[in-house]
């Protein structure tokens, strides 16, 4: 039975929820507002009403070509995600449907690599990139981003696959399905929501990755995260331009996130509630 909640309590909670949401969203909102100001307005102090000038955007675009890092971001995010899925789907499959005594340990070990600070392996990876000629290349960075996010991708898919009842796969086997038929006609269609939300989340994670992209790129392979960083030092005092660059960097992923909210929430909470 649902608990009876008084009208006032409801209003109170609604206001509180909106307040928290606004608080979290405020930095992004203020960045957008600032990007629409002139430089004088931007440094003048706190003001929520901009003059709606696009001057900063024009300057950013004319000084640094936006489309190059944008293309790099798309290639890195989508490429590393697809690569990760190709590796993770069979891995998660094996762990979910024919687990061994060590499966849990392997999963924990994979997750533990995410607990290590990235800077701890910066030097070796930097040297590997330097010596193999992968520095500032899209291919090098795609592979690296794939490996960074792989544990999360495997975990998410594993949780999804575990929810698929084993008896359904056994039924398919009894019905004469080969391993290929089983994967193609039964498992994949049932796992599509899970694969889709994993894909979305991983694209977002890869898009936002800043540590490695800044360390290992200069111009050729630099994505949007490096693009913003490149603004912060020479243009650090030009807040309107910096804001415009930031908005341009986060806009695509914000739009993607907005439209795929439902999938994402479902993906992240999947398996938590039966």
């Amino acid at each position, binding site marked *: 039975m649902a608990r009876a909640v008084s009208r006032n309590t409801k209003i109170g909670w609604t206001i509180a929820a909106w307040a928290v949401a606004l608080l979290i969203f405020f930095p992004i909102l203020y960045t957008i507002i600032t990007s629409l100001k002139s430089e004088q307005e931007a440094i003048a102090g706190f003001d929520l009403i901009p003059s709606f000038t696009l001057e900063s955007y024009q300057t950013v675009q004319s000084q640094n070509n936006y489309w190059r890092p944008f293309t790099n971001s798309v290639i890195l995010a989508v490429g590393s995600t697809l690569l990760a899925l190709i590796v993770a789907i069979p891995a998660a499959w094996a762990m979910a449907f024919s687990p061994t005594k060590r499966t849990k340990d392997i999963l924990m070990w994979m997750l533990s690599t995410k607990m290590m600070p990235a800077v701890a392996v910066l030097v070796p990876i930097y040297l590997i990139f330097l010596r193999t000629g992968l520095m500032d290349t899209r291919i090098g960075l795609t592979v690296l981003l794939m490996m960074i996010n792989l544990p999360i991708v495997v975990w998410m898919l594993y949780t999804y696959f575990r929810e698929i009842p084993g*008896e359904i796969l056994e*039924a398919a086997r009894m*019905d*004469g399905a080969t391993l290929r038929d089983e994967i193609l006609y*039964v498992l994949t269609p049932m796992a599509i929501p899970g694969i889709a939300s994993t894909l979305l989340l991983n694209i977002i994670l890869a898009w936002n990755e800043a540590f490695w992209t800044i360390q290992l790129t200069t111009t050729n392979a630099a994505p949007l995260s490096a693009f913003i960083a490149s603004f912060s030092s020479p243009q650090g005092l030009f807040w309107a331009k910096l804001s415009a660059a930031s908005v341009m960097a986060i806009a695509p992923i914000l739009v993607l996130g907005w439209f795929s909210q439902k999938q994402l929430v479902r993906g992240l909470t999947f398996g938590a509630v039966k």
Partner: protein
Amino acid sequence: MGQITLQGVTKRFGEVEVIPPLDLTIEDGEFVVFVGPSGCGKSTLLRLIAGLEDVSAGDILIDGKNATDASPARRGLAMVFQSYALYPHMSVRKNIAFPLKMAGVSKPEQDRRIEAAAKALNLTSYLDRRPGQLSGGQRQRVAIGRAIVREPSAFLFDEPLSNLDAALRVGMRLEISELHNRLKTTMIYVTHDQVEAMTMADKIVVLQAGRIEQVGSPLDLYLRPKNVFVAGFIGSPRMNLFSGAAAAEYGAMTIGVRPEHIRISGQGGKWKGRVGVSEHLGSDSFFYVEDTGLAETITVRADGEVTLHHGDTVWLTPDEGKIHRFDTNGDRI
């Protein structure tokens, strides 16, 4: 054809031997029920026959051919699962068509077989629905339909009715029995419910801890249980089992008397006791008699019209010719 022979079939999970070497022959067209308490290995045995588990030792022959290492798909058997295991993303029609599609059956032939199965199972008006839109009984029928269309050499049922409510269960029980009469195909049916076993089987296999305790027709098991375990497991309500002086009188370690083989009377008899709980079903009455000094309670089945009250003193007399006697090992004398 659907003769299935198990020769020395053994299953170990790591160190644990869940099924010690076991021999069994299931004749073509037989309805065989594996029954036993939960954890007795009956489902594992069925899965070994299906090919969903690998045997640790021994051979499985299907129609004389060794199928021990054959994949489930190649054994020509169909299975109905406890959870129905329907494909949730496919319509009923596609679910039933799936094994035919896998076998490469032509489209017109597929349609013909689906229509026939749907008609036989009253599913015609549900063919375009998804499993999620069906009731438990309808889902079970779809699962049976999916098994029928393959025209397998044997059907395997793994506790197919345990997710249904009592009324539906009785109905489906009859439907499965009718199906067997019509198809005359071998059926192996796993259940923990001995009523299902007694009512459906041609042959019952009673299992305990992976061992076969007795194989026989339902009446055989009822009238001549081979040991104390089978005596106590088959029959509802349970057979009354006593040991001690009452058993020694008959030259046995343990004796068993079924509730219907004990006469209850207010006037006099062999054993004296007091009526505890009584259950009146109309056709029969069951009395649970306490304080007899033989066992905690003795169950007696009497005519529906017999009325006795809680606390009444009664006398019980067993039908001497129907007492089952067991030795120190629990085996029938």
